[in-house]
């Protein structure tokens, strides 16, 4: 028998951080999570799986559009037509969503109870699925401990939306330990909540399939579900099944040997080409290009993010057409000349460096700068604060780190000035 284990679909959740630009392949990506889910359903039909498990977070908790639920029901209808049952467990996001309670689902979809652990039996396969949906978003009790005992002679699958213990990156919902899961004696634990694929354990199998589509630069790499092959007596194989329609990638470019902006662009081109050669599957990529290294080009690059981005976009368009979306070009290079070298010049630039060193301690200057920057920050929408880390510092009036960070770039920039 075969089944698909998926989780964290977050239907219609948007991709974030992708600033639009002319000729950007925006249309292609606006329905990425839907497209990924369609891919999942198509794979289930193509693979003629026996059932599908959704281990929580079908929707984004704050997403209100009922069309999303309707779309989900329609896709479930496709599985129903193909005779594939679906076992749906609600996670913290689903618990928050009003769609979860209202949406009428096709008869092939069966949702786990929220009040107590429940078991679905598939008689002809001798498979038992145990699970309990979240009633509330903030479910912090250990749900796993209440799961029923295994049914002997059957393939027992536990479905659970949890962060397990010790996962700092995700909210600690339905916490439990691996030992508690293992102790249940099930053959397979179909987990959800953690967005990265993880094979937590093989004896028994405890698997996070990851989310079906990466949605921002922190979710890089291939995304999808897992295709599990099993017999009544146990799991035979777990394969990854990639459903994403766009892949996030952080492309670091070392500019240690680049002496100017043109050389930097050349280096980016080289890395882009190499990346395209490596990822020959043709999936669109959302790239964050990060320029690193101690470089003589550092000064010339100062304040040239826009131009670098334009040059990188042109490169991307030339090399891969609409396959690449440049999320951001981030300059993290450091100046070729260290502070000591500049000090030894004993010229006006050295004097300026010494003066700039004093800037982060000049209260009057910092206050004046803060006042100016607050004019932007105070008028900005609330959501922007989460995207621009400097906003918090400006709000709190602590701009000296910002000044200290900008000064070396400014010095390098002036050194490059004719």
């Amino acid at each position: 028998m075969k089944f698909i284990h998926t989780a964290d679909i977050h239907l219609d959740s948007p991709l974030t951080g992708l600033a639009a630009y002319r000729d950007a392949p925006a249309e292609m990506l606006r329905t990425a999570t839907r497209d990924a889910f369609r891919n999942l359903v198509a794979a289930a039909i193509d693979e003629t799986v026996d059932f599908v498990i959704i281990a929580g977070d079908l929707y984004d908790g704050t997403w209100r559009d009922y069309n999303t639920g309707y779309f989900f029901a329609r896709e479930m209808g496709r599985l129903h037509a193909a005779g594939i049952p679906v076992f749906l467990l609600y996670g913290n996001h689903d618990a928050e969503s009003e769609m979860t309670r209202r949406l009428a689902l096709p008869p092939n979809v069966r949702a786990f109870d929220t009040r107590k652990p429940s078991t679905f039996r598939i008689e002809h396969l001798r498979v038992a699925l145990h699970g309990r949906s979240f009633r509330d978003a903030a479910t912090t009790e250990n749900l796993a401990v209440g799961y029923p005992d295994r049914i002997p002679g059957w393939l027992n699958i536990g479905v659970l939306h949890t962060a397990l213990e010790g996962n700092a990156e995700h909210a600690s919902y339905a916490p439990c330990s691996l030992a508690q899961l293992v102790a249940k004696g099930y053959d397979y634990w179909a987990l959800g909540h953690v967005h990265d694929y993880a094979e937590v354990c093989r004896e028994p199998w405890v698997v996070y399939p990851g989310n079906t589509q990466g949605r921002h630069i922190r979710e890089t790499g291939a995304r999808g579900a897992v295709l599990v092959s099993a017999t009544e007596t146990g799991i035979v194989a777990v394969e990854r099944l990639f459903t994403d329609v766009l892949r996030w990638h952080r492309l670091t470019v070392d500019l240690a040997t680049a002496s100017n902006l043109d050389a930097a662009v050349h280096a980016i081109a080289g890395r882009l080409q190499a990346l395209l050669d490596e990822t020959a599957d043709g999936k669109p990529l959302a790239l964050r290009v990060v320029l690193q290294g101690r470089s003589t080009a550092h000064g010339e690059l100062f304040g040239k993010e826009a131009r670098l981005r334009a040059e990188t976009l042109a490169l991307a368009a030339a090399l891969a057409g609409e396959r690449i979306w440049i999320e951001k070009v981030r300059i993290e290079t450091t100046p070729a000349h260290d502070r000591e070298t500049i000090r030894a010049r004993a010229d006006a630039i050295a004097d300026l460096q010494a003066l700039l060193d004093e800037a982060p301690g000049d209260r009057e200057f910092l206050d004046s700068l803060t006042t100016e920057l607050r004019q932007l920050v105070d008028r900005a929408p609330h959501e922007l604060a989460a995207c621009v880390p400097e906003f918090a510092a400006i709000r709190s009036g602590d701009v000296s780190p910002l000044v200290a960070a900008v000064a070396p770039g400014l010095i390098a920039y002036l050194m490059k000035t004719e």
Partner: protein
Amino acid sequence: MRINRLDLHRYGKFTDCSLTLPAAPCDFHMLVGANEAGKSTIRAAILDLLFGIEARSTYDFLHPRSELRLAGSITHAADSLDFQRLRKSSKSLLDAAGQPLGDDALLPFLGNSERSFFDQMFALDHLRLIRGGNEILNASNDIGRILFQSAAGIGSLGAVRDQLEAEADKLWARRHARDRAYYAAKDELAVAEAELKRATMRTRDWLDASGKVQALQDRMAGLQDQVRALETERAALERVRRVAPSVRAHQGSQQELAALGEVIQLPADAGASLAAAEREMASATTRQKLLVERAGQLQALLATIVLDDAVLACAADITALAERRQQTRFHTRDIDKRQQEVKVHWQDIEACVRQLGWPAGDEDHLASRLPPAPVRSSLAALARRHATLELALAAATDAAHQKAREVEAIEADLAALPTLVISPSLRAALETALRLGDFRAAQQREEGRVAKAERELHQAESRLGAWKTDLSPPGQLALPAAAQAERLLRRATENEAAQTALRQRALEVAAEIESLELATTQFRRTHDPVTSGQVANARHVRDAVWTAIRSGGSALTDSAAIYEEHVETADQLADQRHAKAHEAAELQAKLDDAERRQRQAEQIAERLRALADEAATIDSEWAAQAAALGVPTLPLAAFEGWQEARAATLRAADAALQARAEQQQTADAVARAQAALRAAIADAGVALPSDLEALILAARHLVDEAAATATRRAELTRQLAATKSASADLARRRDAADAALADWQERWQQGLRSAGLAGDTDVATLEGTLKLFDDIDDKRQAIRELRQARIAAMQKDLDDFRSECRRLADLLAPAMVGESPDETARRLNARLLQARDDAREAARLTGEIARAGEQIAEVAGAIDTARAAVDPLLRLARATSHADLHAAVTRSDTARALSLSAAAARRAAEEAGDGLPLAALAAAVDATDMTQVTVRLAEIARQLASERELQVTLAAELATAGTSLARIAGQDDAARAEAARQQALASMADAAERFIQVHTAGRLLRWAIDRYRETRQGPMLARAGEIFCRLTLGSFAKLTVDFEARPPLLEGLRADGRTVGISGMSEGTRDQLYLALRLAALEMHISQARALPFIADDLFINYDDVRARAGIEALAELSATTQVVFLSHHPHLVPAVREVFGDAANVVMLGG
């Protein structure tokens, strides 16, 4: 660090060029060269030598880039390095022996300085000067900026700041503008949010929409039931109202039928059939009577007509006779006319006969006299040929005579030609002379070449000056001597460099000593410390007074006060020394330092003396060597130049010798050619010209003339032979023409005889005779045609017409026999026409009578038919008369009409009765109060209208609700809007992030420049003011700052106390201000850091000589602290340089 030597081995236009920059107290070096002489190349070469040849160097236009090579010698403090620089990205340094040096081999000399820093700080050219001056103007209200960009050697701090601010402004500002990135994204965000709001369907929305649709559907169903009931009732009432008349009519008809009783049913058309039959019988009887009368009248008319059958039988002949009569009507008159024409023709023939001279006769006689046609043709042909034969004979005779005359003329020309012979020696001499070509030009060129070579030799010798030596071969300097001299030269150069460096050091030490002494004096003045010596000295004086007192040398009373004074002084000094122990120690340290410096100065002086001794030794060695070379007074420094000049002199001497030899060879060749030609022409016996050109012309004339005569003779001989041959041919042709004419005469006589003409008849007479013969023939032919074709034919037609007239008259009208044929024919034709009219009338009457008989029979048939139609009705109605029959038909028709009426009423009722049977309809009608039907129907219509209106409203509401519900069908509009919203947010974040960085940088720069001004303006402006004063020749006393202005302004202070702002300064003054600031900054830099050579490239282009000199003086001041390389394309600055630096100034002239 300084550069001692720069070798441009392979670089730009240079190949193996070396520049020596010897050290001197004022380390100033002027390199002068015209444009394109390589000044910029040298400037670039210095940078490339020190910091590496650039990967994209443009100085590879002569030597391949990979082979570019520089070398040099540099010194810093006591260290020197001879090295080479290759065009490589690494390991580009080699030592003098070609062994690799580490990439950091220059670090001890250059420190951490890098190329761009050196270029900005230590290199200044005209363009940068101008740009710097302009930037000062641009930044005139920002002293900090002026100071910073002048000090840093960057020209565009304002542009940097503007760029940052412009970039920030493009991203965000308080004012909303669509072209600012942040606001553009914000607008997109607003659009996306609106779209999201529109597209988002909450679960509650779906429930509402779904519920509303259901409720509306339920209401619609109830409404439809009500409408249906009303419609049913209205239909029933409408039916009753509709069928009531028919039902009533049906009932009435039934009652009338019952009242009629038993009725014989006749056909429905019985009445009509009876009436029609009766009308037919009456009409047929009337027509029958009229037709019988008409038949009788026609028979009577037919009996009156008699037919002329005999004429009708011959109708064709009579018609033909009439046509023939028309044809022959004018024949008699025509025959007379033709006879007259025959007569005229005969008269013409008789006239011809008379011209021939023949006697008159009849037609037969004439025919016998005329010669036959063959004879006449033969004579005509002979007459035509006669003229041709005569012309041919005359032409042949003329041509033969002409050709004979030509032969005689050619023979006379040949006899008149002269005889010329050219000797082979003349030909050979001419050939030799011609091979010399333009010997005059060649001789002139060679003369010029000799003169030039001698001039160059003279110049070369003059360059040797007083040091001419033997130029006779071999004339080369022995190699060992040259090498020795070069060694001496190198030693002398190194000695001089070392002396220069030591002198520089001596100056520095002296300055340091002076500075220390001044510091010591000032220190003493300020702190007045007491040294141990002073204390000891005071104590020594005190003790001496005491010793004198104790020894009785002086009276206690007298000396006590003095002793006490000394005791107090010594104690005070001791106290002071104790109190100022720190200052005293410091003073002592200064004194020690001064002493140390003094010792250094002495050591330097000692080393300088040793170097001077060595220089003297070199000079004496060179004096001996120069004497050995034969140039005892030649300075060592001039040796290289002398050696080159000597080699050049030798080359010039060789060239002059060669030129003179070539000139002599040419002169000899000319003389030989002249003698040979003169001898050969003398043999030919022509008058002898003097020079070679005339001899060549004479010889050429002789040769050309002989050749022309020979050619003419050959041509005349060929013409004579051809002309003679042609003359013989022409004589033969003349004889043949003569014979042909004689043959013609004989045949002519025979012809005349055959024609019966006179033997002396000439050709012209014969042609007239033949013409008369032809005319006679033509007339005879015309007479024949008139007689046979015209007159005879007409006569035959007349005869035939007359005979036909007689035949028909005999047959049809014997009475007309004897009348003229023409009258007979006319009357017969009139009779025929009458007979035909009668026959046609008789036929028409016969036809009319037959048709009347047929019509009478038809009318009788019609009467029978009508009667037969009535008979069955009579039998059916059991009637005996038409009147009975009429009554029966009336009853039958009434009964039928009532039945039909009842049936129609039933049908109408049933058709309008919605399928109900008549009985049910009648029952419904009977059961309904008809007076209330209309009232009720109106009521129902009102109710229905109201219900329908409600239905339309509900349908619209349902459609709207349905649409709302249908909008929730899984669309992705909201998802798309949210994606667009996130994109806009990302764009805003991007713009905000960049704005924060760029704005901070701009503000930081402004802040730092303000701080820079605050900390640097004092010392820098003081020193720059001094330099500016010098550069402007005292026009400005110094630079000041107007602190009252906001922001503070930089100004120049005139000697008379007036101030001039930046904008009030001329462009040249601003350039000088920039130069002053740069030099002040450079001095300040050098005082704190390692000094590197200063490269000044064409700085004083726009300066007059006085200002240029001031500029050179400013550089001279700088050259005391660091090496200055001054590149210029103005040779007129050299005297100024020499004035400032003296004759020892190192001025290098670069080749063009």
